[in-house]
């Protein structure tokens, strides 16, 4: 089963492809194109922020600590709160 984050990223990437093709098809003077460009820039910013703050740090941490069992265990099963 795919995780929620992967699904959201896939939707984001598909929207990015659709909006960029739409932007190239619409007339440069039309308001719709401006709206599409606005959506495109917002989406691109969100995806970039997600990439920089979440995906990249996780990938780097995974690369550095891949031999540490404690790290791998904490990624697979999140630690439970002690009462």
């Amino acid at each position, binding site marked *: *089963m795919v995780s929620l984050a992967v*699904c959201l990223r896939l*939707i984001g990437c598909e929207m990015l492809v659709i909006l960029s*093709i*739409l932007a190239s*098809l619409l007339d440069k003077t039309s308001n719709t194109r401006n709206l599409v460009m606005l959506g495109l820039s917002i989406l691109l910013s969100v995806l970039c922020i997600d990439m920089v703050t979440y995906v990249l740090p996780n990938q780097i941490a995974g690369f550095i600590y891949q031999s540490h069992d404690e790290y791998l265990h904490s990624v697979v099963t999140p630690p439970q709160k002690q009462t």
Partner: protein
Amino acid sequence: MITVLMTIVACLAVSVCSLSSAFALWLTPKQLNRIVPYLVALAVGVLLGDAFIHLIPDAVNRHGSVSTICFTVLIGVFGFFVLEKLVRWHHDHLNDIKQSQLENTILPLARMNLIGDAVHNFVDGILIAGSFLADPLVGMTTTLAIIAHEVPQELGDVGALLRGGYTPKQAVLYNFYCSLSVIPGALFTILLSQIAESSLTVLLPIAAGGFIYIAASDLIPVLHERANIRHLSGQSASFALGIFFMQGIVLLEQTLLNT
């Protein structure tokens, strides 16, 4: 929640595939004029193939009664006939008002094609969401099967839209807008799954009736406009290719769903 998101991912993938018709933008007007008759012939083959090989047997499998399905197909043909009369009436009314716009008007066949395509994509959305609700794996195979039949159909549709008077950019754009009806279809199924499942027995034959009507009454007469040996052989080959393509996709779909 994951099922809903996966359904949306699949629907957007189908919509992205409809943009495959954007190849028309890279062709010169001269090249387009040469290939449009063959694309229209391909559209006829794909639409008739989709109706007779894919949609009607699927509806019979779901409903079981052949006579009821055939009657619903006829209702679809009749509905699209009335719709075209309305479009033509509106079209003629506009021409009465502004005779100068005659050259820029869009032929009814293009609008009919867009309506038929939107209904078909709505049905595809119901099928995608229904299969994801049943099992994510079945959902993925159904999406692959729909994408496989979507690509040749979009090529044919763009050919029909170009013949109907749209510019290449408009044809690709409007075709894409119609393909977005896959998302309301999926949302309709997710929200009202039981009604959507039973509505397929009506929607599938109606979409088939629409395709038969568009292919037989709007597109085939266009194929008869030019009659020489080159067009006879080329258009017959494209027509046959469309039918064989749909047959191949149905076989692929069965293989995917059986594995």
